[in-house]
């Protein structure tokens, strides 16, 4: 008889979190976005295998896309025969033919393709890390403010209003001028600038959800505050938050790239798409490939996340 009263089995945590991604195959826009993102994730993961040259090695300056390296084995580069330099490239067995600069080289002679491939690693480590930390700060504050209202809400809301009243890039310039520049500071600055936006969204969702029956039930059971916030409200707000996270990730990628472009980014020499664009800017009138290919790289990755967000929104509206 007990069977008649048994509830349908609760789907596992994995299904609840990744469910929207499974539905994604119904949206072709979302699938294109997912493929773009996966493409860059794979590129970043297999960067050491995929990159034809070491990313920071000065090989031959100002080579157009498709140029062979070297043009002749006896060519002298800085007084050293090219063949010897070829042999010195890690993983390069062939003595004479050491490859092609598929996307050309930059002013210093570094291979653009290899730098884009290794640049993907940098982007896909720091941008998700910064976004994740921003959510880690924004979610508890937003849940607390939206659920309990009162003083906490007033204080947090005012702080986030002040931070959001800065035009973003002005805020970054102010922070990065005052503090020493390092990867950790840049990540912290992104968290500082992005968390108030997340706070606002989460607060709005929590204010909407606090009047639901399951929250009232948990209150009646005498559940502690953290349980109501993280076990009752947060899981029910996950749909819009996942979509927002994808959009925000795209935006953080733009931000980190832009900071590097204006000269406030990660310290050199490791490849960074934004700085590659800045370096290629000077030669854009006669050798546009140096700036152009990193532009395509960053745009395609951001496009991937934006299409993914659109696809997820589309499938989440369906049910």
């Amino acid at each position, binding site marked *: 008889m007990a069977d008649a009263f048994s509830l349908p089995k609760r789907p596992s945590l994995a299904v609840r979190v990744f469910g929207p991604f499974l539905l994604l195959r119904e949206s072709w826009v979302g699938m294109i976005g997912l493929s773009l993102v996966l493409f860059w994730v794979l590129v970043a993961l297999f960067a050491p295998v995929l990159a034809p040259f070491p990313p920071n090695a000065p090989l031959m300056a100002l080579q157009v896309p498709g140029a062979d390296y070297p043009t002749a084995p006896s060519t002298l580069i800085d007084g050293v025969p090219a063949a010897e330099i070829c042999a010195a490239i890690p993983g390069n067995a062939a003595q004479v033919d050491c490859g092609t600069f598929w996307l050309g080289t930059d002013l210093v002679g570094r291979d653009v393709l290899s730098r884009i491939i290794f640049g993907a690693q940098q982007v896909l480590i720091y941008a998700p890390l910064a976004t994740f930390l921003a959510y880690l700060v924004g979610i508890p504050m937003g849940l607390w403010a939206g659920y309990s209202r009162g003083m906490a809400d007033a204080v947090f809301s005012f702080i986030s209003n002040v931070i959001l009243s800065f035009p*973003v890039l*002005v805020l970054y310039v*102010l922070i990065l*001028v005052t503090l020493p520049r390092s990867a950790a500071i840049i990540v912290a600055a992104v968290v500082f600038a992005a968390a108030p936006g997340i706070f606002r969204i989460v607060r709005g969702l929590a204010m909407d959800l606090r009047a639901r029956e399951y929250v009232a039930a948990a209150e009646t059971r005498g559940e502690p505050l953290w349980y109501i916030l993280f076990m009752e409200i947060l899981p029910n707000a996950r749909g819009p938050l996942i979509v927002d996270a994808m959009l925000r990730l795209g935006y953080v990628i733009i931000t980190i790239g832009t900071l590097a*472009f204006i000269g406030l980014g990660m310290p050199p020499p490791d490849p960074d798409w934004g700085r590659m664009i800045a370096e290629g800017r000077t030669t854009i009138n006669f050798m546009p490939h140096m700036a152009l290919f990193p*532009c*395509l790289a960053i*745009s395609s990755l*951001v496009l991937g996340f934006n299409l993914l967000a*659109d696809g997820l929104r589309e499938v989440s509206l369906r049910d």
Partner: protein
Amino acid sequence: MLVLVARRFGSMILVMLVVSMLTFLALEADPGNVATKVLGPYSTEQQRDIWMERNGYNDPLPERYLRWLGNFLQGDFGESTRFRTDVADVLWPRLGNTAILAVATMALVIPLSLVLGVLAGMREGSATDRTISVVSIFTTSIPEIASAPILTFIFVFLLGILPGTSSFQDGFSITQLILPTLVLVLYDFGYVTRMTRASMAEVMTTNYIRTATLKGLPYRRIIVKHALRNALIAPFTVVMLQINWLLSGVIVVELFFAYKGFGALLLEAALNQDIYVIEACAMIAVFVAVGTQALSDIGYTVLNPRIRFN
């Protein structure tokens, strides 16, 4: 109405005060640091002490802040170490140049995105709607740092029909304005379009539109007379808030095209530790952002009678 305006401006002043304190604290909390930046890293300890004494930097922090704020409100921003002149002399012309860029951008973004947004929202889910949505996602995915080189590549390198820099060296020229404006428009119009589309789509599902349709009114009349008036309230706010984003975009675009504007000034000051220019630029940027926010709130109330009396 008057109460709302007063409240809105009151909170605006409060935010500006807090921002001014933060800016001051970030840049001037340590007087020795200010002296080093103004006199340069090779100044002697003694020189710095004399400078600090003469300029009142030995006074307590609150006193210095109040004096700074007082001067600031009177338009005295101090002296630029980079340009060797009053900050105001550099700032205002630069701000004027940026205003030209902003007006040109808005003059294109507003009509373009409103028309596209309304067309997309009129028939939600139609082929037009999907196309416009995907195109606007596509253009907002290309950051300014990427669209500027790409457009330069097309119009300067391939076609050779536009100049690649916009420094206005021989006076104002409209051809030099095209590329920077285009970059900003390309990045900004997608967002406004999507917001307009959402607003229009929502209006199209309301009862009064259904009534108008069932009355047998011509489609054109329903859209123009009934839908647009309500659908365009939300985009008004979005357009105003876009100015905040524009101030960020302007920094990249001005740097890329060597445009002598406000964003380039802020960046140049930041990279050269010219703190009085940084302060003035930051305060003005926040003032413009907060001011437009307040105006958009007030405008929204004026436009939307439903929320006017609560």
